[in-house]
């Protein structure tokens, strides 16, 4: 055992003292470090700690439902789950993006796009990366809560429309808001929000859309919710009642069938739209989640233009329906006098050019209308008579009356993107084509051919207004609309009498073009129209391709004077006369209207209003379900079945 290092008491006291100072200095420096974090930068770290701890999850407000005039549900919601991405931590998001893309079956590029598009939003605000979570998605999110603490599920309310595009064009559809919409909304809309894109959904978006709420929850470090701080409930959107009558809408949809065309039914006394159909139509349910780019492209490129609401956007020559306007102008101006008659040999020659009457091609082989007066000319829709009337009236007077009666300008219906149609005039050709008006054009226009175009809604309003003695109510879809517009154009009583008599005769007198439409007990009146898509002569030259076939119109109303209902029907390129193709649709709707009215008067008709709330337990899966089929025609009086789906817990 070595002993020599014992009792060696040379201690380096100086250096030990230095070590003491170093210790004090070290503790002092560490304390300075704490001082910086805990006193100087404390607020900043406090905010960061709070952001760690608190997660804000939006509570989506349900959109207001749409009811028909009797309170039946036309459009409502069903609950579903969206996948949210929390973006507070950009590096963490970037790192996990491939795993998320893989797990949810979204392409990485698409995720990057979505992140780029929402860069401007505050970081703490999560974004929707998949609008409709499948069961597999839910399982993925739940099982990766710890390693991918970035995904959250959000309960949303999806729009549910009646199937097969029922009333689809009128209701419109919702979709993710566009950048323009966000800019125009004064901060009310944020990316990822759903808002009305077309139709009533767009028109009354502010009413239908509620105010989203917010749930502030405490989450732990693996993203698990461990507590709740506060809840700001969502304010649901307002429910709106439409003027639409489910029963009439139903029969209109069925009667038009799948033929391209449109139906508008109005109550001319109030301007209420009772039914509105346009074919072809996309199913708005397809838009309620997210329409794929391919689908959107297909819809846009479809030659039949399924996205066009023909009821308010198809601008087509009205054909012989226009003769009612020519006739009104003639009677009011007394040019030519009321007693004016013509002989119709099947054609007429003006300025060395032959203008054919439709009777020349008629299947009956009659080739001639003989001598006609105004009443007969309307009944039989004689073109030659109106060619002559138009020649004598001149385009200026014709245009004056047409515009006063509602042609060439919007009706002002509460739907977006209504088209005005066109009433041509010498000023118009001057302005548009920089040429003079050809006198021959007046001849075409006086029978609703040539450059004159109208929408089905316009024709319904015009004919309804004339039969109502020159009172034109603004068409509208919202039941309790305030300040409904009204235009009045004084038409003399004898004129109205003669015009309405003639239109009554179209259906109820022998020789009328709508004789097959007669309804016992109903003063069904109307006027057919068959607008040439191209001139008769051109058509003769070309093979009879369907594309070049005529547009069939029929505008009917009842009763004969001061009608309660007016229906305009367009069937496009049917190859049939207006009375044949469109007339039955008008008759079906008006018949249904009167049947329902009779039942109501007898107390046989009752509408059972469903009672359901959106939180009910309907037991439907949250994943997209086809809405239940609407009532069949036989039991159209039955209310639309309740279509409430319940939330399936995401576990």
């Amino acid at each position, binding site marked *: 055992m070595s002993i020599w290092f*014992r009792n060696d008491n040379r201690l380096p006291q100086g250096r*030990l003292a230095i*070590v*003491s100072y170093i210790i004090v200095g*070290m*503790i002092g420096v560490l304390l300075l470090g704490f001082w910086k974090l805990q006193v100087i930068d*404390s607020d900043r770290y406090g905010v960061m700690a709070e952001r*760690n701890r608190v997660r804000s999850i939006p509570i989506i407000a349900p959109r207001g439902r749409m009811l028909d005039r009797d309170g039946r549900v036309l459009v409502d919601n069903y609950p579903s789950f969206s996948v949210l991405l929390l973006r507070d931590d950009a*590096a963490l998001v970037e790192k996990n993006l491939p795993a998320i893309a893989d797990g949810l079956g979204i392409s990485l590029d698409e995720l990057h796009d979505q992140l780029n598009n929402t860069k401007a939003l505050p970081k703490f605000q999560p974004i929707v990366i998949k609008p409709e979570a499948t069961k597999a998605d839910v399982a993925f999110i739940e099982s990766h809560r710890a390693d991918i603490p970035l995904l959250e599920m959000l309960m949303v309310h999806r729009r549910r429309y009646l199937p097969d595009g029922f009333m689809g064009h009128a209701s419109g559809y919702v979709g993710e808001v566009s950048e323009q919409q966000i800019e125009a909304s004064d901060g009310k809309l944020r990316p990822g929000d759903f808002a009305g894109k077309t139709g009533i959904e767009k028109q009354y978006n502010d009413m239908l859309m509620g105010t989203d709420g917010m749930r502030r929850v405490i989450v732990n470090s693996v993203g698990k919710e461990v507590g709740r701080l506060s809840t700001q409930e969502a304010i649901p959107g307002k429910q709106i009642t439409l003027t639409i009558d489910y029963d009439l809408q139903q029969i209109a949809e069925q009667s038009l069938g799948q033929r391209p065309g449109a139906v508008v039914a109005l109550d001319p006394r109030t301007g209420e739209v009772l039914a509105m159909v346009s074919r072809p139509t996309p199913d708005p349910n397809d838009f309620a989640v997210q329409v794929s780019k391919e689908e959107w492209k297909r819809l846009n490129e479809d030659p039949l233009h399924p996205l066009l609401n023909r009821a308010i956007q198809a601008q087509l020559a009205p054909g012989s329906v226009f003769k009612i306007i020519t006739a009104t102008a003639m009677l009011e101006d007394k040019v030519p006098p009321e007693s004016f008659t013509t002989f119709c040999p099947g054609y007429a020659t003006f300025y060395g050019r032959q203008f054919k009457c439709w009777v020349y091609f008629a299947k009956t082989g009659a080739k001639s209308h003989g001598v006609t007066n105004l009443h007969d000319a309307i009944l039989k829709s004689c073109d030659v008579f109106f060619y002559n009337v138009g020649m004598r009236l001149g385009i200026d007077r014709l245009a004056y009356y047409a515009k006063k009666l509602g042609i060439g300008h919007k009706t002002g219906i509460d739907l977006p993107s209504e088209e005005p149609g066109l009433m041509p005039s010498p000023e118009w050709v001057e302005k548009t084509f920089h040429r003079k008006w050809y006198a021959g054009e007046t001849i075409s226009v006086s029978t609703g051919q040539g450059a004159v175009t109208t929408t089905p809604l316009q024709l319904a309003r015009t004919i309804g207004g004339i039969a109502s003695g020159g009172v034109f109510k603004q068409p509208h879809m919202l039941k309790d609309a305030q300040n409904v517009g009204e235009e009045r154009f004084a038409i003399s009583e004898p004129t109205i009498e003669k015009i309405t008599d003639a239109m009554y005769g179209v259906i109820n007198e022998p020789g009328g073009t709508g004789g097959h439409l007669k309804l016992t007990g109903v003063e069904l009146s109307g006027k057919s129209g068959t607008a040439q898509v191209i001139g008769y002569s051109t058509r003769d030259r070309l093979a009879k391709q369907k594309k070049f076939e005529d547009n069939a119109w029929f505008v009917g109303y009842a009763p004969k004077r001061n009608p309660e209902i007016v229906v305009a029907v367009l069937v496009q390129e049917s190859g049939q006369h207006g009375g044949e193709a469109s007339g039955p649709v008008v008759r079906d709707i008006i018949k249904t209207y009167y049947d329902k009215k009779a039942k109501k008067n007898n107390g046989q008709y009752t509408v059972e209003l469903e009672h359901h709330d959106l939180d009910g337990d309907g037991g439907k899966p949250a994943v997209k379900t086809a809405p239940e089929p609407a009532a069949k025609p036989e039991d159209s009086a039955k209310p639309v079945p309740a279509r409430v789906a319940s939330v399936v817990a995401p576990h």
Partner: protein
Amino acid sequence: MKDAPGTRDYDWWLLAILAAICALGVIEIYSATHGSALAGMHMKQVRWLGVGLVLMFALSRLDYHLILDQAPILYLIGVVALVAVLAFGHTRFGAKRWLPVLGEFLQVSELVKLIIIIVLARFFAEVQSDELSLRDLIKAGLLVGLPLGLILKQPDLGTALVLMPLLVVGAFLAGLQWQHAAIISLAGVLLVGSVFFPPVSKHILKPYQRERITSFLHPEDDAKGSGYQLLQSKIAVGSGGFWGKGFGNGSQNQLGYIPVRYSDFIMSAWAEEQGFKGVLLALGLYMALLLRLVQNAQRAKDRAGMFLVMGVAAALGFHVLVNVAMVIGAMPVTGIPLPLMSYGGSATLFVFLAIGLVMNVRLRRFVN
């Protein structure tokens, strides 16, 4: 040799300081774990403290000169144990550090720290001149270098680093010459610099070590790794403010944002819940502990005792410095616990055994 020293000769002040630090540790371990699956951990820590206390008293009874006499054998045991760990050690958290002893897994490197303190004390005590020659300095370096290399191999950078201040403080007190000090400092700067310089660190550091270095330098690049840990620790400390959020109220602590909040990052949890005032208390206690150790060294009977006590002071001081600096984000994550506050069996036993050595020296200061 006269009678064995009496109880009055123990450093009761030192024990009081230790007890206070342990109390803070147990309180914070309880706060950090009581609501989680780890509940009850504070009682386990109390058990370790009890065992440590017994070992401390046992070690203090044994004359440190006898221990120093056995230094070569202890050194051999230490090296063999380290080799054994590498050969049959139990792997936890990706590193071979544990050997099963008495049904618990002990970190051999903690024991080795103690052995190196003893070996260096013996070595420096044998230096007879007042100035440390370069020859002796290199010898001391080699003495530390062998176990250091073995510990790095586990890999356990933290414990390996702790051996460095033992050498530095020992050499300094043994009369390190200023020019040697300058050279060593330069070498140290180069070493640290190379660790932070990727082309070099590629060859000398493990991937996880390099990752810690990069995430320390660029925490935002590694949001969920050790950069995240440092950031969360800073958030916890900073959000505590001056007064703290209160016992059991630290959201960073309670919701698990602080990594290993009951062990390496316990200071973070403490700072969040107790605020700057709590930090002042804790660091004040550590300063008192270290200064008390230096005082014991100053009053040691001989050079050997002084080196023993200062070796302990160097080890504990380095632990406090590196751990606390990590908690405030001023140093990378190294896995060095905070003595007596962090939960951990081996580390606690090491501290108590080390304090046992200090008591040993103190008890014999008047004995002759």
